[in-house]
């Protein structure tokens, strides 16, 4: 009996990510969810600009590559044209929380019936480790060589906290992939986000705290520990919004 194997909705080719980069784990989780829900044939994925730009080669479903930050708008277009398809975007922090902030906020405000996988690793990976909108105060990057000084570079953007204030979005959860328990929770959250779309509940965003060993200058193991010691305290894990659950609670009261 097979206990564990590569999910079918990942194409059988090696991924280009650096050793120990957790993009690979998150790709696999998305693919496992697609397999378990049996939706590969009707899923359309939107790849970002950033490290995951070539995600279109890795997922076996139909894929499109969006301009930097525009994935939620592209996903909106696809979903409006083909409501019967399941549409997800896969975006990094620079893509989603900096250049694409407007698209993120407004697709959430419209409660667009799409699923967003938001990979937050607090740095621009593809361009070589620049400060991201989610880089932590004091974090050293190529463009914050003395550490992120919030007096000049401002504060990190907390996407889930910000979006939960909107009436629009259906589901917002922050997870991490820094250990086995958290990876399993992350998968559950991603499955929820896809299921919400299947049930026409609307906008679901899963923020995944992720590592970038290469640009953080750490071993893959140390990078996962850094998520625990530095990122999770600043970006607490948990469900930030679950409208259906909240509505159910209200009804029961």
């Amino acid at each position: 009996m097979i206990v564990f194997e590569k999910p079918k909705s990942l194409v059988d080719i090696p991924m280009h990510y650096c050793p120990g980069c957790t993009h690979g784990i998150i790709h696999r989780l998305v693919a496992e969810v697609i397999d378990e829900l049996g939706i590969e044939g009707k899923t359309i994925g939107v790849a970002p600009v950033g490290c995951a730009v070539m995600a279109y080669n890795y997922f076996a479903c139909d894929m499109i590559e969006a301009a930097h930050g525009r994935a939620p708008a592209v996903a909106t277009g696809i979903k409006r044209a083909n409501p019967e398809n399941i549409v997800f975007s896969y975006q990094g922090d620079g893509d989603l929380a900096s250049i694409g902030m407007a698209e993120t906020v407004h697709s959430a405000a419209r409660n667009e019936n799409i699923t967003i996988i938001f990979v937050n690793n607090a740095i621009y990976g593809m361009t070589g480790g620049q400060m991201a909108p989610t880089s932590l105060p004091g974090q050293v990057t190529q463009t914050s060589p003395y550490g992120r000084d919030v007096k000049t570079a401002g504060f990190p953007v907390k996407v889930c906290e910000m979006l939960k204030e909107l009436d629009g979005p259906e589901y917002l959860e922050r997870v991490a992939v820094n250990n086995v328990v958290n990876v399993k929770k992350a998968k559950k959250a991603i499955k929820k986000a896809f299921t919400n779309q299947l049930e026409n509940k609307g906008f679901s965003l899963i923020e995944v705290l992720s590592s970038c060993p290469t640009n953080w200058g750490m071993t893959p193991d140390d990078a996962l520990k850094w998520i625990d010691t530095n990122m999770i305290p600043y970006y607490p894990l948990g469900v930030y919004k679950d409208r259906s659950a909240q509505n159910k609670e209200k009804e029961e009261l």
Partner: protein
Amino acid sequence: MAKKVLMKGNEAIAEAAILAGCRHYFGYPITPQTEIAAYLSKRMPKIGGTFLQAESEIAAINMVYGVAATGKPVMTSSSSPGISLKGEGISYLAGADLPALIVNVQRGGPGLGGIQPSQSDYFQATKGGGHGDYHMIVLAPSSVQEMASLTVKAFELAGKYRMPVMMLADGTLGQMMEPVSLDIKEAEKFDTSWALTGTQMKRKHNIVNSLSLIPEELEQLNFERFKKYEIIKENETMYEEYLTEDAEICIVAFGIAARVAKNAVNSAREKGIKVGMIRPITLWPFPKKPLYDLSDKVHTFISVELSMGQMIEDVELAIRCKKPVMLCNRAGGCIPSPEDVLAAIEKANKNGGAL
């Protein structure tokens, strides 16, 4: 004869788009094109279509990119400053070989400019606007009827050649009312086997993409795209020729400028001046051949434009600078009068080819 209705140019575009089979529109308010959005916001929900007021021009064009990738007819509209914002998305549409209609109801610029009609986005429309080696087919209507008929043509060309098509109108054409026949058939459908519909587990995944990291492969894609452009130049160039058989002077004008210029041509003819006009209907591809063919017969060309002189460069290139090309223009939202154009014709007639 088909029944005619009185419509604004902007509304004619909107209704024609629906008749052509377009069910998806994304836009952002900007004068002087807002009637397109207003019209479609009324109509689309009644016919099961999508009207979505996006958060920005950038979002709107990327929503267009998404629908285009599903192989369905889709459009957006804006005016000059908004088209600049769409530049990125247009480049991506071209790079991913996706069909879409982008309407530019031009206003004066640069910058925020004004809200009065202009043709000063000619360079932007015909030479790029976005980054990279690409072209759009650029259609220039000069009546409300053409606003409608060229809209259908635009969807057909976009689908046939899998590329963005721009309708380059201006504030006058957008706002003015004329009788228009809406005897319009749905745009012809084209192969969409490349589109994103979900694999249904029956085929390998389709990928819509403009990234190509291997230089030789990217070069090849550019070569192939430009082969397509050559076919378009050969087969899709459109223009109107008016009284050119015996002409010694040739006006070149498109859109609203051509309407004004035609009056001036008629007045000049009454005075016995042998003047004709070429009106490009496609600005890209530009009607180079008819202009070149005329360059041996006429002694002067006059480019009439609502800009500081943009199309004039293409006229000079088309005739290989064999004859002088005068510029008769207004800018910033002003329109040359028939008298202005007539004065230019009379000057050309007097000079006889010497500038």
